[in-house]
């Protein structure tokens, strides 16, 4: 029994401090049960204000049409689709942490998975706004669904990558939500059973669905989590693959490339981990959860960032090489003249992207930098800016000069309402995140307890004794 629980002593504990099961419950429930701090209110109100700005911007777009944006005849996709791809990409880290790392049995995921999954859901909610409002007549958005209608019935085009997107994003949102909420049930039951106030008992009583913690229910819950993880893993790869098909299946120079699916998926995980870092560095500080989201967690995630950042770097160079090697003059023009050439109108954005995504993350080869909170926070912002510019480069620099020089567009800058829409999704994202961090446990309580005896600082030393005794007993039995 003891031998089976072996965990390398070299590996530092994932839960620091003198914790037992009850202390874990206390620590994680404290922020939920306490009154929100002044800092929380300030953040929440700023988010609400941004959301309000977004509502006004979107309202104008709905009322006056997409003419409120500076899109023109060659740049049909601008900030809106850039933001869409950026937000979807951010969501991917949450699923990677909750699903892929579950399949790989990575114990450290338990400290960060709940918040990362929440981030996924909010990010996908933000992403969905952009293609929906880009349609212009948003009240007809349901036309994208294949329902029996009076126009024939006229069906949607199942061969179109844009329709694949409808299915991919809505499936991704649904499955992420189910995965997240089914994992939340036991923790909501913990909050329900601790509740002293009447409204809390009612609210968490409804939210926990009557969870009891029965062994049979846990058995099914484990099975459900494992299968949902198994489903989410190919799903998350498929979602960004399909997003990349929006570009890759077209014949636009700069888009028409087979490297896009893996390159987009790596980029998505890269930007998503950066956003997880941004959120969790603040969360652990504000909610004093440093013993659960430790420097170990931050370091591991920085390793993922340097790995995926380098994969993205290789992809940039590969597509550049292929553009030249293909000998297609339009392809090479898009890269050489519209991107690499710093003197071209958007050359700066290509080099900004290169600097933020490929060069600067290399700092994380140094252990000292990976474990430095300020550096990590700064880099997480830099990576997010860089990944936004990646999508901007792909979309705008491929579109602004088409085959006919006479139809090249003037320099594209967004209007205040385009910017406002983007700011509004930040408002939506952070409003949701602030509410989540106030009313839900930001760390998966049951999952932390599950790994506590193996990975907790409190038990690691004791396990050592148990193991040594176990080995001696074992030796004793076999020699006599």
């Amino acid at each position: 029994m003891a031998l089976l629980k072996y965990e390398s002593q070299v590996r530092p504990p994932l839960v620091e401090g003198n914790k037992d099961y009850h202390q874990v419950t206390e620590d994680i429930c404290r922020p939920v049960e306490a009154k929100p701090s002044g800092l929380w209110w300030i953040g929440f109100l700023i988010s609400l204000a941004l959301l309000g700005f977004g509502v006004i911007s979107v309202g104008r777009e709905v009322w006056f049409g997409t003419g409120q944006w500076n899109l023109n005849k060659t740049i049909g996709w601008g900030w809106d689709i850039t933001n869409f791809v950026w937000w979807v990409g951010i969501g991917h880290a949450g699923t990677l942490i909750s699903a892929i790392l579950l399949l790989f049995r990575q114990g450290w995921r338990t400290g960060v998975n709940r918040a990362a999954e929440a981030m996924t859901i909010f990010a996908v909610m933000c992403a969905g706004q952009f293609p929906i409002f880009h349609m212009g007549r948003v009240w007809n958005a349901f036309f994208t669904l294949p329902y029996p209608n009076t126009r024939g019935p006229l069906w949607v085009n199942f061969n179109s990558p844009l329709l694949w997107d409808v299915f991919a994003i809505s499936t991704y949102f649904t499955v992420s939500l189910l995965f997240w909420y089914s994992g939340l049930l036991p923790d909501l039951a913990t909050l329900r059973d601790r509740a002293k106030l009447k409204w809390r008992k009612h609210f968490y009583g409804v939210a926990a669905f009557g969870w009891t913690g029965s062994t049979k229910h846990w058995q099914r819950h484990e099975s459900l989590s494992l299968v949902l993880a198994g489903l989410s893993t190919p799903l998350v790869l498929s979602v960004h693959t399909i997003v990349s098909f929006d570009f890759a299946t077209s014949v636009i120079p700069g888009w028409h490339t087979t490297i896009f699916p893996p390159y987009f998926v790596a980029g998505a995980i890269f930007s998503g981990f950066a956003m997880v870092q941004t959120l969790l560095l603040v969360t652990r500080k504000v909610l004093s959860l440093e013993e659960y989201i430790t420097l170990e967690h931050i370091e591991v995630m920085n390793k993922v960032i340097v790995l995926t950042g380098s994969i993205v770097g290789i992809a940039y160079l590969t597509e550049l090489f292929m553009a030249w090697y293909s000998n297609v003059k339009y392809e090479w023009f898009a890269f050489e003249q519209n991107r690499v050439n710093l003197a071209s109108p958007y050359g700066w954005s290509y080099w900004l992207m290169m600097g933020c995504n490929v060069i600067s993350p290399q700092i994380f080869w140094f252990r000292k930098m990976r474990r430095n909170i300020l550096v990590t926070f700064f880099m997480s912002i830099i990576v997010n800016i860089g990944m936004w510019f990646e999508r901007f480069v792909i979309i705008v620099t491929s579109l602004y000069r088409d085959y006919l020089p006479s139809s090249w567009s003037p320099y594209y800058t967004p209007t205040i309402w385009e910017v406002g829409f983007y700011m509004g999704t930040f408002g939506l994202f952070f409003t949701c995140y602030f509410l989540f961090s106030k009313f839900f446990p930001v760390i998966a309580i049951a999952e932390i307890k599950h790994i506590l005896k193996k990975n907790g600082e409190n038990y690691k030393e004791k396990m050592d004794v148990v193991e040594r005794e176990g080995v001696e007993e074992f030796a004793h039995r076999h020699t006599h």
Partner: protein
Amino acid sequence: MPIKKFVVGNFYDEQVLFPAIKNVRKTGYKIHDVYTPFPIHGLDTAMGLRDTSLHTAGFIYGITGTATAFSFITWVFTSDWPMNIGGKPFFSLPAWIPIMFELTVLFAAVGMVLTFCYLCQLAPFVKKDHFNLRSTDDTFTMAIELNERSNEQEIVSYLQSVGAQDVSVQLKETGWWLGRYDKEQKLYNHQVEVAG
């Protein structure tokens, strides 16, 4: 569902819980359930529960999703409204793979979660009786069901002897009902099934 009588014991350590379950089962007492704050691997086997077939259900839902997408798109593009797109074949399977995959995942996930909720009687406003509120915090709570022939005192002292703490005898409703957790509710005026 009827109200039944249970002997309830609490454990605080897995290393006490596992031998206790083994002994209780060997002695022949019927374990109603063990409630734990987190999943403990091997507990289901120790209690003699059979493996869940939820994943098999998930597979069937997934296949249903694939079949739905494939048959529907085939019907639309080959029979209901064929469209000539640059002379390409109406039956263009490779272009349908993304949607077939997405519907597989969607059906499997939604179906499994609904089945899970159905099997475990989980839904908003569902209320159940709980043996110990600490069993979602740090306590492993074992409930042994009493029948006409069981000796209450004997089971209580037996549970204490295998390491259970705060052993008590409780009358509990075993089913679920629609209710609120902030209110005390007496739903049934049934006679207790087991004479004490």
